[in-house]
């Protein structure tokens, strides 16, 4: 089974976000970047499927030279090949998806794995977009996956429960937490990954379909009425819930 895994490079989730000087992107100085957390589930699932069925796992990332670090992590986890599609820093999903689609057409994977969302722009669209562009079925937000022959059964989260979706390979799956427990790369593998080749190509430029005009840090002023939990104060909170928040 040949599997393509799409890996995004995002700020560590503990990052305090500040607006950069242009006002359209975040301040990158001092930010630690990591593999998008959901993509770790995608990588782990790809490796497990290869361990079971054989085949090749290719990790691809679209971005700048800096993206090499997420490919090194992917190699350390165990992917066979790593591809950097190098160009502008992605801000428009169409640019990313067009470049992934191009790679996919070249290597014709049986399965494409992604994360359910990239936790930087939270664009929430690549898996299904890719499915439409490649005319492949896709299932998003998957927390359990079984593949037998070319029959795929994927369980995904819906409001108030789960649904099971069936489709056939080749298919696209986006990973949700719960799909597996991603492995931690071992030190020797991290060392070995440093010298593995990275297939680097120029990204194709596209006309942006969306533009960010500005980013802002929401400053929701909270009332902050914090008090000791005496009986009177609990009564006061109940009164506030009743008269101010009006939920009672």
């Amino acid at each position: 089974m040949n599997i393509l895994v799409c890996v995004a490079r995002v700020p560590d989730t503990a990052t305090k976000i500040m607006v950069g000087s242009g006002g359209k992107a975040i301040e990158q100085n001092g930010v630690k970047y990591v593999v998008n957390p959901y993509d770790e589930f995608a990588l782990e699932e790809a490796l497990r499927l290869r361990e079971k069925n054989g085949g090749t796992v290719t990790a691809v990332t679209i971005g700048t030279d800096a993206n090499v670090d997420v490919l090194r992590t992917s190699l350390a986890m165990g992917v066979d090949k790593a591809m950097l599609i190098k160009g502008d820093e992605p801000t428009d999903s169409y640019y990313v998806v067009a470049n992934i689609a191009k790679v996919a057409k070249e290597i014709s994977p049986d399965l494409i794995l992604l994360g359910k969302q990239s936790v930087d722009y939270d664009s929430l669209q690549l898996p299904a977009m890719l499915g439409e562009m490649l005319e492949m079925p896709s299932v998003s937000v998957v927390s359990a996956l079984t593949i037998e022959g070319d029959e795929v059964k994927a369980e995904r989260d819906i409001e108030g429960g789960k649904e099971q979706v069936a489709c056939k390979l080749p298919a696209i799956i986006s990973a949700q937490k719960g799909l597996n427990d991603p492995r931690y790369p071992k030190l020797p593998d991290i060392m070995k990954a440093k010298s593995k080749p990275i297939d680097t190509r120029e990204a194709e430029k596209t006309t942006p379909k969306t533009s960010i005009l500005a980013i802002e840090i929401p400053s929701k002023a909270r009332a902050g009425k914090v008090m000791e939990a005496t009986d009177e104060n609990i009564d006061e909170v109940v009164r506030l819930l009743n008269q101010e928040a009006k939920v009672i």
Partner: protein
Amino acid sequence: MKNILVFLETSNNALKRTSLEVSTAASQLAAGANAKAIGVVINSNNDVAGAAAKYGLSEIINVNNAKLTAHSSTAVAKIIAEVAKAEGADCVLFAANAAGLEIAPRVAVKLDAGYVADCIALNYDSNNIIAKKPIYAGKAVAKTTVETPVKVFSLRPNVFSAAENPVSANFKELSVELSDKDLSASVVNVMKNEGKLDVLEADVVVSGGRAVKGPENYYLIENLAKTLSGAVGASRAVVDAGWRPHSEQVGQTGKTVSPTLYIACGISGAIQHLAGMNGSKYILAINKDKDAPIFKNCDYGLIGDMFDILPKLTEKISKITGK
């Protein structure tokens, strides 16, 4: 802008609340832009879909297709895109829920449109739509525009209010052919947590943190949720410990909720948890540590032991709500 198309979803023979929210948003956009707001519903009828007219949609289209026996995002995307083309829609709106998030990107590709997901505001301004959407898990908000003639947006549930604005609606049937390829992914089984309200759909969410100490104490959280007809949520510490399912996790790697009231019980307020709850209208925090970060991000706070506070609070609220 000429025509705004809204994907209407039904459940138990009624329009979903999120569809009413999106209908309201569409009719408000349409009013500003002198455009028409149209709804499309699949395998339904005028009685059910007609409710959308109360929320300002002046045309409602029903598409019946016998091939669509179970939900299929690929097939629904085909139908919506065909209806959009037939109606000359230049803006298509979805709810940013499980179905909408899977269908909208496909519709965008079929219509050669740019798509912005999970918007919290849409404003019509000099022939353009400015969308606001949370990024970095809500730590920032991006003002975004779509550059293509046709624009697709999905709207975060619970953020746009559903406001009645009755108009008289035209009803229309349209047929759309589906090929096997359009039906390439279909739902084969639905597992609902019966009678359980999801954190994404609830007006009140009560979440427990590590302080709950074990699943045997979670009844304290459940009882409070019950008095407020709310849903039960959890921090990641609770989910990782296996006390509650991941479907209840609130936060950056859980769900992003926006209820009217969020109650955090014995939750410290880590940045990843805050990211999931910051969109709540009101936040009540209960924590024994007066320096817990959660208190810097709340409207109301009670400092003390949750094992003492929760039964008292529950009883007092129950006296008012009778639940």
